[in-house]
């Protein structure tokens, strides 16, 4: 089977190339048609196999179809032509029963294989055949954000999941409210995130460093379509560094600038019932430990202070605000004045405990214009203008984390590999 499979694959690669040229395969950080992970690659193979089978079927049907329509139209000169009233034909009927069965078997066998393979969450074995320690992350879905907790590591974060590249990460998923579904199309297929009682497990293995876009794929309320998250695949060394940096955070660190300090006070008075900084089990709202490193705000908005202030002040629940419709973030923040919100925003944007930021991961996959959409922050900086750029600088220097300023320079991941 492998032999002819590869031949077909070659042909198909050409077809795919043609599609790429015509823009039919989407963006590399989002598209299932440009697999960058173990699961996505397996599934891609299966897709191609099935498409080939379907094309065979379709061609057969279309050939007969075109032939009969062209050939057997009523003749103008002989409208009374009486066709033979055929009852059927056993040989033919057997033929089109048996051939589809064979085609389906060809599809069914790898389907079953892959279904089992993708469901396998047993620990990996090393060369001696011993079980290795697995990296487990607990994922909690909530309306409308994602909580990530690294098991036995005392590290929690939300919205942006850091994983080491080329290592299988084990995910254990549950929801604290309705059903969500965890989907990073370019790395792997999706898995539902069920409420209590039905915990799901899956593995995630990214083959290239990079930032990958994740989507919630199960209708979960008004903000379903903007419940985006990212998976940031970094080198194993960077990953370890990141974990270390994250473990160091207590939430009590004082930021440098005075406004940020005021912001911190306000944050602690108003926001801590729902949000946490530093390792914590999931709360009502997202964990903000490394909020300063986020690529997107609220999962999907451009990361800048204006948006953040608006976010803090927008009502979600009960109102039709289009920024975060149906969002549960409610109560206290709405008594905040513009100034106070701005201070909190200022503080939050300083939260950057680690030099390992999404920027480090960028040169895995995206070298083209995709960068722009992913990193508006950086775009502004390279163009050397805008307030938010200053905010960024501020935040980075005030945090005093040595690597973070590197993070804003293109292609500097190399330098950050200091284990």
């Amino acid at each position, binding site marked *: 089977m492998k032999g002819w499979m590869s031949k077909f694959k070659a042909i198909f690669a050409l077809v795919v190339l043609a599609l790429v040229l015509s823009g039919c*395969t*989407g*963006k590399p950080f*989002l*598209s299932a048609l440009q697999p960058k992970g173990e699961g*996505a690659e397996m*599934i891609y193979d299966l897709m191609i196999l*099935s498409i080939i089978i*379907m094309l065979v079927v379709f061609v057969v049907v*279309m050939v*007969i*179809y075109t032939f*009969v*329509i062209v050939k*057997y*139209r*009523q*003749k103008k000169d002989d*409208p009374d032509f009486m*066709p033979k*009233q*055929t009852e*059927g034909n056993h040989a033919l*009927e057997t033929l*089109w*029963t048996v051939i589809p069965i064979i085609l*389906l078997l060809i*599809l*069914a066998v790898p*389907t*079953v294989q*892959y*279904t*089992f*393979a*993708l*469901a396998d969450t047993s620990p990996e074995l090393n060369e001696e055949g011993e079980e290795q320690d697995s990296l487990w992350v607990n994922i909690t879905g909530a309306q409308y954000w994602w909580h990530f907790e690294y098991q036995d590591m005392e590290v929690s974060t939300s919205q942006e999941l850091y994983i080491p590249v080329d290592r299988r990460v084990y995910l254990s998923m549950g929801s604290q409210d309705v*059903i969500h*579904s965890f989907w990073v199309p*370019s790395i*792997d*297929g*999706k*898995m539902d995130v*069920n*409420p*209590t009682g*039905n915990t799901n497990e899956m593995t995630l293995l990214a083959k290239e460093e990079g930032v990958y*876009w994740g989507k919630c*794929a*199960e*209708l979960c*309320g008004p903000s*379903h*379509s*903007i419940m985006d998250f990212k998976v940031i695949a970094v080198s194993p060394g960077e990953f370890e560094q990141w974990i270390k940096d994250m473990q160091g955070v207590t939430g009590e660190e004082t930021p440098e600038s005075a406004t940020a300090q005021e912001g911190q006070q306000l944050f602690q008075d108003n926001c801590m019932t729902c949000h946490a900084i530093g390792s914590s089990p999931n709360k009502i709202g997202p964990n903000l430990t490394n909020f300063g490193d986020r690529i997107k705000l609220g999962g999907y908005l451009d990361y800048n202070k204006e948006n953040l202030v608006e976010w803090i002040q927008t009502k979600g629940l009960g109102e*039709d605000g289009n920024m975060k*419709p149906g969002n549960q973030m409610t109560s206290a923040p709405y008594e905040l004045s513009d100034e106070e919100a701005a201070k909190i925003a200022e503080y939050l944007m300083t939260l950057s405990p680690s030099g390992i930021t999404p920027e480090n991961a960028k040169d895995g996959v995206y070298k083209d214009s*995709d960068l722009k*959409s992913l990193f508006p922050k950086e775009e502004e900086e390279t163009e050397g203008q805008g307030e938010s750029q200053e905010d960024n600088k501020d935040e980075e220097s005030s945090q005093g984390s040595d690597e973070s300023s590197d993070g804003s320079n293109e292609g500097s991941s190399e330098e950050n590999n200091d284990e």
Partner: protein
Amino acid sequence: MSATARKAGFGAALWDYLTTVDHKKIGILYLVAGIFFFILGGLEAMLIRIQLISPNNEFISAQFYNEVLTMHGTTMIFLAAMPLIFALMNAVVPLQIGARDVAFPFVNSLGFWLFFFGGVMLNVSWFVTGAPDAGWTAYAPLSIFSEGHGVDFYAIGLQISGFGTLMGGINFIVTVVNMRAPGMTYMRMPLFTWTAFIASVLILFAFPALTVGLFMLTFDRLFGANFFDPAMGGNAIIWEHLFWIFGHPEVYILILPAFGVFSEVIPTFAKKRLFGYSSMVFATVLIAFLGFMVWAHHMFTVGLGPIANSIFAVATMAIAVPTGIKIFNWLFTLWGGSIRLTSPMVFALGFIPTFTIGGMTGVMLASAAADFQYHDSYFVVAHFHYVIVGGVVLGLFAGIIYWWPKMFGTMLNEKLNHWFFWLFFIGFHLTFFIQHFLGLMGMPRRYWKFLPDQGLDLFNLISTIGAFFMAVGTIVFLYNVIITQVKGVKVSGDPWDARTLEWAIPSPPPFYNFKQEPLVRGLDPLWIEKTEGNGKIQPATPLGDIHMPNNSFVPFMMSLGLFIAGFGVMFQGTYWVLAVIGFGITAGSMLYRSFKDDLGYHVHKEDLEDEKGDGSNG
């Protein structure tokens, strides 16, 4: 003066339709209601497509989008496709088997009014606290936490219309089992009757699961039960199972009668008998049987585990085999025929490649591992519109156009029908073909908006443009209907030179259908008489009195009662009064019905002899 006369005429006609138990008139009721809801659902689809015309669009709000999306799916499936299928079944099945009417004319009318009031109930939600917003699948616990009364309207509205459907289903099974004319053996039944029969069987066994699911949803939301609430030990997955145990057979309930339509249209216009009749029947039964064992293919990503996923994957794929048998049988019916490209035929020919694509993407979805990528993405949206619009809707329109002369005695304009077809067909492929790619490129379904710079802009735009083509096509059809009925040119009983029994009587048929029970001498009885006999169906019985059921207003009242009661149950508090009143009306109507003998009346032999025409067509 003439105005008052017309008014009285209108009032009488209205009363006639409110009380009718005649299958032909009930068919027309279903048709009108179905087309109304189809336009409503279509307008909702247009809202969806306009919202998705460009990235970050804020044409409608997120909450409203979810309501529109839910109502689009629910309306199209339950209030447009189902009743249109019932419209054709009512108009055609009794005629095709040479029956006087359906087995339970009273229940038939009850079925319609239940469906109708259920549909109205669902749509009342727009004006009261907002429409349901949890998707047509109403997955718990989202549907339980959903605020307002939207989901209550969904649960109670569908419950009421579901009862109607169930009754309709039983009615048609009994009709086919008990009321076939002499000589009409099972294996001589036209395929449309066969598929209507099998679809009814599916209704019988699929709808109870929905009934129970909806009851539990209602109890959870309104009476504090805990079926789906994880905090109280409930389990949301139960809803998914119950919904799909119903939901998957439901899609075959929709498609099988469409298959039936094509199996009538293709032989008629290819001037050939259906190729492989018995394997067509066999395939229909097999699809129905397998259809009950595959529901979990909608739940591959739920986490049922690889064993369950594999079993359901393979079972699902198996359905491609009987369906393939059908496709090839149609192709070989065309083979060697003499094809006339009338508008129903064009719809049938448009259906074949379209449905094949939809079926093929279905098989791709059935590949469980690969479905981890496809699931809940626009790939699925593309799949089911290919099978539903490309299969069911094309089938319904083919059937409506084909049987229009039989139902109304007039002929739709062929040229306009062709325009309708091409606009709709091209628009359809523009809208949905491209959605396969959108899905694979990472666009999940049920998304109120998509973001810029994700490579999704162009295809969404094209898709929206396609939808406008479909809308224009539909408008052409509506225009056609109106001018045809205004002109009102009458046609003969057999305008298409067709093959089956229904074409042997005048169009529209007299209210008692066949004057004498027809004698069926084989498959395609009219064709047999045309080629081997004198072109007329022979009677099986001498002319005698005809027993007819009485009209009744009771079905309307029973349904109205449930409709009113629904509001009481929903709003509770002082509104419980409504529940008491409503259930009172329903129970009272039922008692009235059972205490008053309804023996029907007779059309006398002498009157029949006076009638013009001999009940068969020359």
